[in-house]
């Protein structure tokens, strides 16, 4: 477990393990990963995923492509996850609105919060682009949850199952870089 100290004297925080997130994705039946690299999740998630023979990785040029790919895959029950940074999430809001909300399709997203201080809640971040994420998701009535502590990974299978059962999107916000080992 990596302990990070950032910003606040004495504020040491634990990070989730990438291997545990990947294991939970598999438990949820996910074998398709669609991704655009994000520095928050690069070492701990995307590089390991790219080497995992049980997962198929589709690399996209722009994040909204991935939202559409995941949505279309869902029609035959294929479970997929889109991996991206919050800037890509913001860039994809219209497609998420269209296929996720208007068309009621289960698009699951893992979103790295680039620029978020590890010991702070997203709304406490000095970065405007981080502070606004959860309010924006709330305004769109999109389901979301935070992955920061190592134990936060435990809710991943249940949240994915709920997204597919309800045929609605879910956004996992990665608030601390997952540990690579």
């Amino acid at each position, binding site marked *: 477990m990596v302990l990070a100290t950032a910003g606040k004297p004495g504020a040491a925080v634990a990070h989730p393990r990438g291997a545990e997130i990947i294991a939970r994705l598999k438990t949820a039946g996910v074998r*398709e990963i669609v991704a655009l690299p994000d520095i928050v999740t690069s070492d701990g998630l995307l590089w390991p995923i790219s080497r995992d023979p049980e997962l*198929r990785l*589709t*690399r*996209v*040029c*722009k994040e*909204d*492509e*991935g939202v*559409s*790919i*995941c*949505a*279309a*895959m869902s*029609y*035959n*029950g*294929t479970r*997929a996850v889109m991996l991206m940074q919050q800037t890509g999430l913001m860039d994809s809001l*219209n*497609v998420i*609105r*269209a*296929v996720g909300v*208007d*068309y*009621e399709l289960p698009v699951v997203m893992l979103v790295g919060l680039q620029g978020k201080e590890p010991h702070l809640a997203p709304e406490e971040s000095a970065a405007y682009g981080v502070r606004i994420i959860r309010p924006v998701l709330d305004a769109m009535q999109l389901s979301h949850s935070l992955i920061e502590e190592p134990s936060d990974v435990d809710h991943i299978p249940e949240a994915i199952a709920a997204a597919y059962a309800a045929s609605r999107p879910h956004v996992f916000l990665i608030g601390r870089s997952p540990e690579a080992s």
Partner: protein
Amino acid sequence: MTLRRDDALKALIPLVNDEDIVVAVYQSCFDWLALNPRDLNYVAVGAMGQASSHALGLALANPARRVFVFDGDGSLLMNLGSLVTVAGAGVANFYHFVFANRVYEVNGSHPLPGADTVDFAGMARAAGYAGARSFEDLDGFRGGLPGLLEAPGPQMTVLEIVPGAPYPRDYAYIHSAAARQRFRAALNRPR
């Protein structure tokens, strides 16, 4: 020489099998729905430009089916990176048709940026598609169709078209839950 959009679609009808998926957008979609209503017509693209990405998801998740995309030229310009993504994914069951009228037809027929010069087949070729070509007349398209469908994808075919008959624009249907359910039921029907 001119190629009417509905004539091009009619030429495709006998070559699209019952098991194939067709993803169509805007006027090509409305024309296709009128000319060839079928359960595996995918109309729920949702946001302009996303047809090729939906089709890629369908092609990856349904490798035993061919996926046809009837895209618009203005639509493709909104998602040009998808050419690279599709080529990178190596989907052999992916057949991309761009109906190029060089205008935003359903949004007032304003010209595309670069309307007189942009080369969609060239861009697909440069992106890594397995093959790409353009047609400007019906006889040429009819003659080329069987061969291009025998080649493994991703294949790009650009059709330089003019409007044909004025088929109705049924937006209510393409955005309906019933259309999505019809497709879903057909896709998951035992073969």
